């Protein structure tokens, strides 16, 4: 958003259009009603600003707040919650156990989904079958964590764990196509949760449509010479 860097909050986000990690930050910023300047990065030709802001990992997303960088998407989510406590909390205040549960599931998503998903679309034969089996296990675990009757991972409120997973709902379609399964069939609660998330303006606006993610992955496969 033009001019946001000059506004009260001075928030900027260094990001890459299809990145689910970057989208987590965009969703959180919108949920909290925080204006920010979106700065698309060319990952093949990294900017001075990116290299200076994240010298250790040289990765997106990076949040800049009055010029000071915060790196790693889950750390950015925590930072936004703590620096802007009055707006739409991602973590429930005053309930340390609920916070630990939310962090556990956000951490689970971080450890499992992207890495397994990458093997699923990149590999062939037995290693791919292995990745498919693991992905089904991961999705079923998440389905179980939702349980029956819960709108979101933390209960009634859309929170940290939901924001951590929401961008990956677009990638489910690609995993389904490459893996030959249906999330709706295997994990109905997770599928219903994904639909609920998609109805939120912050998610609808910031998450790449599933078909575009699929095309993006096909493009990567071509580039890497994977059939």
């Amino acid at each position, binding site marked *: 958003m033009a001019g946001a860097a000059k506004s009260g909050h001075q928030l900027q986000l260094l990001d890459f259009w299809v990145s689910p990690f970057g989208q987590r930050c965009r969703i959180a910023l919108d949920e909290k009603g925080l204006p920010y300047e979106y700065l698309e990065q060319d990952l093949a030709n990294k900017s001075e600003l990116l290299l200076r802001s994240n010298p*250790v990992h040289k990765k997106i997303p990076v949040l800049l*707040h009055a010029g000071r960088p915060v790196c790693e998407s889950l*750390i950015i989510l925590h*930072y936004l919650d703590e620096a802007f406590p009055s707006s739409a909390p991602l973590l429930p205040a005053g309930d340390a*156990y609920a916070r630990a549960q939310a962090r556990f599931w956000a*951490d689970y998503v971080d450890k499992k989904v992207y890495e397994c998903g990458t093997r699923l679309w990149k590999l062939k034969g037995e290693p791919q079958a292995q990745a498919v089996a693991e992905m089904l296990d991961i999705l079923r675990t998440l389905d179980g964590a939702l349980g029956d009757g819960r709108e979101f991972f933390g209960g009634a409120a859309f929170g940290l764990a939901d924001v951590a997973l929401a961008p990956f709902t677009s990638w489910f379609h690609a995993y389904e196509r490459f893996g030959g399964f249906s999330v709706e069939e295997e994990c109905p609660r997770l599928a219903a949760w994904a639909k609920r998330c998609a109805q939120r303006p912050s998610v609808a606006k910031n998450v790449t449509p599933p078909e575009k993610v699929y095309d993006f992955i096909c493009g990567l496969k071509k580039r890497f010479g994977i059939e």
Partner: protein
Amino acid sequence: MAGGDELRLLGFWGSPFVLRARLALSFKGLSYEYVEEDLTNKSELLLRSNPVHNKVPVLIHNGKPICETQIIVQYLDEVYGASNGPSLLPVDPYDRAMARFWAAYIDDKLLSSLMMMSRGKTEEEKAEGRKQSSASMETLERAVKECSKGKPFFGGDGVGYVDVVLGGFIPWVNLIDRLTGSRQFFDAGKTPLLAAWLERFGSLHAAKVVMPDMERLVELSEMSS
């Protein structure tokens, strides 16, 4: 302990992650029941408390389980605020983000390079591990400068989150040094601030009481190689 407040920690004496949890409990002066797990024959309690990962450490607070070391440490810090020993995470949101960043870095980069160095299947892998560990240590040397701002610990005057996270690895880096007969890590010549930190941290009573016995660690490493 306040009446009815029950803390238990399921652990394995040879785990650096369990050690981190014990360091946090120790620095916060908290009493708890420690339950040693046989990882080749995991207890019903462990499997029930951590059904997703089946791993230690698990903190059980009044019957409710909390898993994953960094989550356990943050939980303890939040529940037992500043009234029980120092706050491990700083108060300022930006400083907290920095502490979390370096804790994540330690787990992501340092751990993986240590594993490659010690468990690498080929000489090339081990050499690559040594190279990466060396690079990680140099990066951490910069981190200690940034975080401590001239004070004795990453947390400043007192021990903080990053100190506890890095502290968990101390016995293992000492073990590697002992087994290789050289000072790979915390070399005062290459990373003087970290070497000084190691001395200081290791000499704290709260750290000493939970550190595992070196001879037992040597035995354990010989068993698993």
